[in-house]
């Protein structure tokens, strides 16, 4: 059997290539093995505490915790930060609410009164990546029995806590007791955050001004990133509540890329309602003819104005719903013509 010279050369080249591939595979296995995630196999990285190595001391990583301690208070715990992988270690089952709304990072820290160990405050700053995301988690968790907190534009307080939106951050300041001294400290921390934590201004919240002002319930605006009123097509939707007579009505609007998309979403929501049992109602208002439905006794209206999808949700009175719809249409038309 003879092996020509060029064949021998070819064999050598192939052999070297094969050896190189094997070496690369070996290196790959070695690298992957050193980065091996045992948790994929149900093995706890730190089974005792449930606090994994991913949880980090936030001190030094961010200026958020620095300089926040109010007068008469000191650090009770070091600042800590959590990412979307380990947020559950801090808030367990509530983590998906944030991670599904653009969550980036959570910074937390506790401060305790130097005079009364029963008085302490926990500070949470959720970086939601954008003001709309921050407003979304703020608004969907808003407590029914809250009180306004006029010092901050988007804020409310309860008897032991203060909640507000600061740029892309959703902030919670939770006190351990109902106490004037504690709440004074809470407001001081809030002031420190506003003074020290630089953020972009709320340019993205122009929708606030797009709702008619008359009869609007104060601080009732909410923002749904997804699934507004249970409809998948209704994303990035703002809602506001109105008190008309004895009735509370919800108006909603969502700005889309263009009028074509707005029309499609409007049709999609109408179809969703009808598929779920809604029936078209007669109306004398030609602008919304065919867009008013009875949904198990409540009136729903949906329409498109330029790039906006808007409408009325769960109104008991068709007349009130149509009146508010008309005001909303006029407002959106004027904005669209500007």
């Amino acid at each position, binding site marked *: *059997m003879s092996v020509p010279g060029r064949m021998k050369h070819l064999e050598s080249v192939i052999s070297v290539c094969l050896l190189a591939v094997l070496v690369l595979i070996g290196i790959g296995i070695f690298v992957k093995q050193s980065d091996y995630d045992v*948790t994929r196999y149900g093995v706890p990285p730190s089974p*005792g505490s*449930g606090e994994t190595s991913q949880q980090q001391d936030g001190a030094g990583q961010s200026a958020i915790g620095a300089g926040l301690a109010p007068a008469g208070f000191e650090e009770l715990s070091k600042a800590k930060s959590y990412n979307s992988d380990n947020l559950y270690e801090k*808030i*367990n*089952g509530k983590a998906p609410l944030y991670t599904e709304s653009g969550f980036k990072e959570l910074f937390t820290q506790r401060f305790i009164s130097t005079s009364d160990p029963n008085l302490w405050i926990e500070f949470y700053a959720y970086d939601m990546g954008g003001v709309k995301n921050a407003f979304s988690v703020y608004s969907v968790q808003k407590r029914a029995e809250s009180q306004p907190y006029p010092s901050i534009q988007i804020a409310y307080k309860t008897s032991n806590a203060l909640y507000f939106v600061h740029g892309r951050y959703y902030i919670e300041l939770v006190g351990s007791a109902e106490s004037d001294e504690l709440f004074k400290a809470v407001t001081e921390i809030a002031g420190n955050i506003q003074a020290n934590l630089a953020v972009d201004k709320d340019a993205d919240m122009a929708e606030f001004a797009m709702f008619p002002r008359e009869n609007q319930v104060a601080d009732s605006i909410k923002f749904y990133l997804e699934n507004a009123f249970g409809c998948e097509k209704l994303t990035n939707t703002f809602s506001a509540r109105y008190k008309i007579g004895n009735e509370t009505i919800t108006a909603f609007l969502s700005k889309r890329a263009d009028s074509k998309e707005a029309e499609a979403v409007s049709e999609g929501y109408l179809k969703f309602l009808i598929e779920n049992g809604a029936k078209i109602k007669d109306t004398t208002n030609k602008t919304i003819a065919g867009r008013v439905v009875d949904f198990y006794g409540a009136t729903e209206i949906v329409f498109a104005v330029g790039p906006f999808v808007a409408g009325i949700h769960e109104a008991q009175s068709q007349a009130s719903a149509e009146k508010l719809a008309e005001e909303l249409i006029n407002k959106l038309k004027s904005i669209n013509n500007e």
Partner: protein
Amino acid sequence: MNEQDDKKLNRRQLLARAGKAGISIAVAGAISKLLYDAVGPRGGVEDTERVTLPDFSVQPRPGQVISIVNGSDRIKTVDKAIELLGGIERFVKPGETVAIKPNVAFASPAMLGATVNPELVAEVVRLCYSRGGAKKVIVTDNPINDPESCFALSGIGKAASAAGAEVVLPKAQFFKHTSLAGGKLIKDWPIFFEPFSKVDKLIGITPVKDHHRAGASMTMKNWYGLLGGRRNIFHQDINSIIAELAMLVKPTLVILDGTEVMMTNGPTGGSISDLRRANALIASTNCLAADSYGCSLLDMKVSDLPYLEKAEKAGAGTTDYESLKPIIATVS
């Protein structure tokens, strides 16, 4: 080997080369066979370390499965609720060791209702000692947050210690792997085991809470605290894991505190305004029965919580708590 040899390969050389190649392949194959792990990584857990949680349940007594006591004073309502089921003497015998597993999930003040009320835990500890004649009571949980902070800031650690219990914080060596027979999620999974391996009875105590993922957190969800590892992955199938926990853990008694109910923003809450006073406390030998009543305190129906139906189908009990003839009382 000269150039001529390079060009020509005789039979002997061919056989020699083929033999060498065959030996190389055989050796590589044998080494691979030797090193191959058909089971995969197990985190160093040997078969002998796999455990089964003991069955802590007591003999059922028809008509004494669930009691519901209305009242605002937790000490009085829990005393009455246990009394109606036959008294603590039914559940704890003299000389026994009892583990109490309260919900201490968060480093949160007691008044926010994210954790169980410390005085309620302390009262059950006292009952175990004074009426049950327990030799030892331990209070333990594997919280979401740092355990030491959770027991300290919730006040449960201090209250339990003051009542004479030993507070046991989780350690890495307390976790052992277990599998639930027929389970699809609890398979070779680490659980908080060691403290429960040395006790005779197990009592779960938990508040009624709204839960963003599960809908509600009650006695069955309380056993989530026994799970180790990256247990958050179970949030993807929260209903199945709660139903499996109801099958895995067979407690002696569970106490569901609905004195103040976290109606919104659970399971963490954060504001007192998340709570509503319902003035109800449930004691039961069956988690499913307790939770099936407990959901009404959250203005929910059994059908609103799929894990209840799943647990019933799995054989954890009945959601029709009325059929168990609950004993209802009011204390002032």
